C-alpha cells in the first residue's frame, strides 16, 4: 500500500487516491488525513473502524458528494471533484438508512429514477428496470409503495436502482446497520452475488460480513491503519482492540478456543472443528 506513487488508473472499475485530506466545515480535526489507497477492478474491499474514523467521509469523497481539501482521487478513471456526474454514472452508492434513499412513490418508478436522470429512452428503461428488480429478488413488487416494505426490501429496491445503471463500482455505506437479521441476510445475499462482477467497497461494523472480502481496510482517526486479509484481521486481537472492533460471537468463540479462522462460518463448522481438536488431543495422549 504505497502512497507515494500515484498510478492514474484509467480502468473503469478501479479506485485510487493519494494524500487525501478533508475537514468538515467548522470541525477542529480533519476527518481524513493523507489517506492513500488503491482498489483494483473486481476487488471486494471491506472498510471497518470506530465511528468518526473517516469511513463514510471517504466514500463521499469518492463519489463527489464531498470535495477534498487536498490530494488526488481517481474513480473509474475520473476525478470526482471535476467530473462528479461522470463518476456517478459508474459508481453506485448504497446508504445506511433504507427509508431515505427511495424517492418515488412506487418501486418501479424509484428503480427508474437514475435511468431518467441519464436520459435513457423509455423502451430501454423498462427492460433495465425489470432486470434490476429481478436481480434483487423483488419480481412482482413493481407497484408496491415503499412505506409498505420491510427494511431489507427497501434496501434491495435501492440496490436495484443502482444496478439498473450498471455501475462498475459499488460503494456500500453500512447498508445493513438499520436492518434486522433477516433484512441483513437478504441484502448481503444480493451484494455477495456481485462479487467479481463489480468493484465493491463495503463499510460496516459487522466484521462477519467481510469474511469473504479480498482485504479489509481499518480506518481510525482519519487514517488507514491497516490493510489486511480478513483471516488476519479476525485473529489479530491487538488490531481489533486498538480499533474498537468487535468480532461476531461465533468468531470470538473460535478465537478463544484457538481456532480462529475466517473459514469457520456456521455453528456446525465450529462444532466440527472443536470435535477434531478434541480427537487430536485424545490421539496425542
Amino acid at each position, binding site marked *: 500500500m504505497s502512497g507515494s506513487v500515484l498510478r492514474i488508473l484509467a480502468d473503469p472499475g478501479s479506485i485510487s487516491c493519494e494524500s487525501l485530506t478533508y475537514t468538515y466545515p467548522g470541525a477542529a480535526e480533519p476527518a481524513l488525513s493523507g489517506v492513500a489507497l488503491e482498489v483494483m477492478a473486481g476487488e471486494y474491499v471491506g472498510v471497518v473502524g470506530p465511528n468518526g474514523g473517516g469511513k463514510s467521509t471517504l466514500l*463521499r469523497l469518492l*463519489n463527489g*458528494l464531498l470535495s477534498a481539501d487536498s490530494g488526488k482521487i481517481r474513480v473509474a478513471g475520473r476525478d470526482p471533484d471535476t467530473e*462528479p*456526474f461522470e463518476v*456517478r*454514472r459508474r*459508481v*453506485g*452508492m448504497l*446508504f445506511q*438508512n433504507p*427509508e*431515505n*434513499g*427511495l*424517492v*418515488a*412513490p*412506487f418501486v*418501479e*418508478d424509484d428503480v*427508474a*429514477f*437514475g*435511468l*431518467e*436522470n*441519464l*436520459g*435513457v*429512452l*423509455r423502451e430501454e*428503461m*423498462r427492460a433495465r*428496470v425489470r432486470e434490476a428488480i429481478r436481480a434483487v429478488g423483488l419480481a412482482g413488487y413493481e407497484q408496491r*409503495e*415503499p*412505506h409498505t416494505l420491510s427494511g431489507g426490501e427497501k434496501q434491495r429496491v*435501492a440496490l436495484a*436502482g*443502482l444496478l439498473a*445503471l450498471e455501475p462498475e463500482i459499488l460503494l456500500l455505506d453500512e447498508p445493513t446497520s438499520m436492518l434486522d437479521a433477516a433484512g441483513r441476510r437478504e441484502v448481503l445475499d444480493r451484494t455477495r452475488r456481485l462479487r467479481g462482477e463489480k468493484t465493491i467497497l463495503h463499510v460496516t461494523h459487522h466484521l462477519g460480513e467481510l469474511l469473504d472480502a479480498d482485504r479489509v481496510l481499518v480506518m481510525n482517526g482519519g487514517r488507514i491503519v491497516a490493510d489486511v486479509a480478513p483471516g488476519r484481521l479476525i485473529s489479530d486481537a491487538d488490531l481489533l482492540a486498538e480499533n474498537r472492533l468487535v468480532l461476531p460471537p461465533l468468531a470470538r468463540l473460535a478465537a478463544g478456543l484457538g481456532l480462529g479462522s475466517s473459514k469457520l462460518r456456521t455453528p456446525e463448522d465450529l462444532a466440527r472443528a472443536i470435535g477434531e481438536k478434541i480427537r487430536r488431543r485424545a490421539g496425542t495422549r
Partner: protein
Amino acid sequence: MNRSLGQFYPVVSPLHALDPRAKILATAALVFGLFLVDSAAGLALVTGTVVALVVASRVPPVTFLQLLRPVAFIVALTVLFQVLFSREGEMLFAWGILEIHDGGVRLGLFLGLRILLLVSAAALLTATTAPLALADGLEDLLSPLKKLRFPAHEVAMMMTIALRFIPTLSEETQKITKAQAARGADFAEGGPLARVRATVPILIPLTVGAFRRADDLAEAMESRGYQGGEGRTRYRELRFRPRDAIALTVTALILAGAALL
C-alpha cells in the same frame, strides 16, 4: 395503510382510464366555465353533466358525498345568507325585520349549487386520477411554462417526493406521539392553548427528522445522477388517445352550451 393515498378511489371506469392531462384541462374548463353560466337552464345542464360523470366514475355515491362534506358548511352559509338578507324580487315571507324574497332564494340556491359543482369537479379529478398520474399530468401541462422560467419540473419533483413521504411522515408522527404519550404527555387535556403547546414535542422532532430525511434524500438523489430537469426522460408514459380528445371536446361543448343558455 392499504387504502391509497388521499381521495383516489381505485376502480376501473371510463373516467379512470382517461389521460390525466385531459382530466386536468377538463376540470379547469369546468371551473372557469361555471363562472360564465348565469341561467338556471345552464346550471341544470352542468349539474346533469356532473351527476352523469359521477355515475360514470363508478365511485360509490356515498363515498363521493363524503368528499363534499368539507364545504357543506360554507354552502349552507351561502344559501342562508342570500335567503335571509337579499331583498331582490318579490317578498315571499316576512317575520319582524326578517324578509325572505324569491330573488334571494334563487340566488342563494344558485350560488350554493355552484360551489357544490366546483368542489365536485375537483373531487372527480382526484377520485379518478392516481396521485402520481396527477403529478405527471401537471408537470406535462406546465412544461411549456419552463420557457418563462417557471420551475415546472421542480414542482413536479416536489409533488412526487411529497407523495412518496406522506405515508412515512404519517407513521413517524404516530410513533413520536406514542413515544411522548409513554412519557406522560397528554394531548387531550387543557384548554386550546395548552393543547397547542402539547403539540410542540411532536412537531419539533417531526420537523428536525424531516430536514434530516431531506439531507439524506438529496445525497441519494445526487449520487444517482440527479441534476435537475435538464435532459431527463420520463419512465411513465402519458399517451393522449382519441377518447381523451373526445372527452375534452364534449366538455367544451357542454360548457359553451351552458354559458349561452
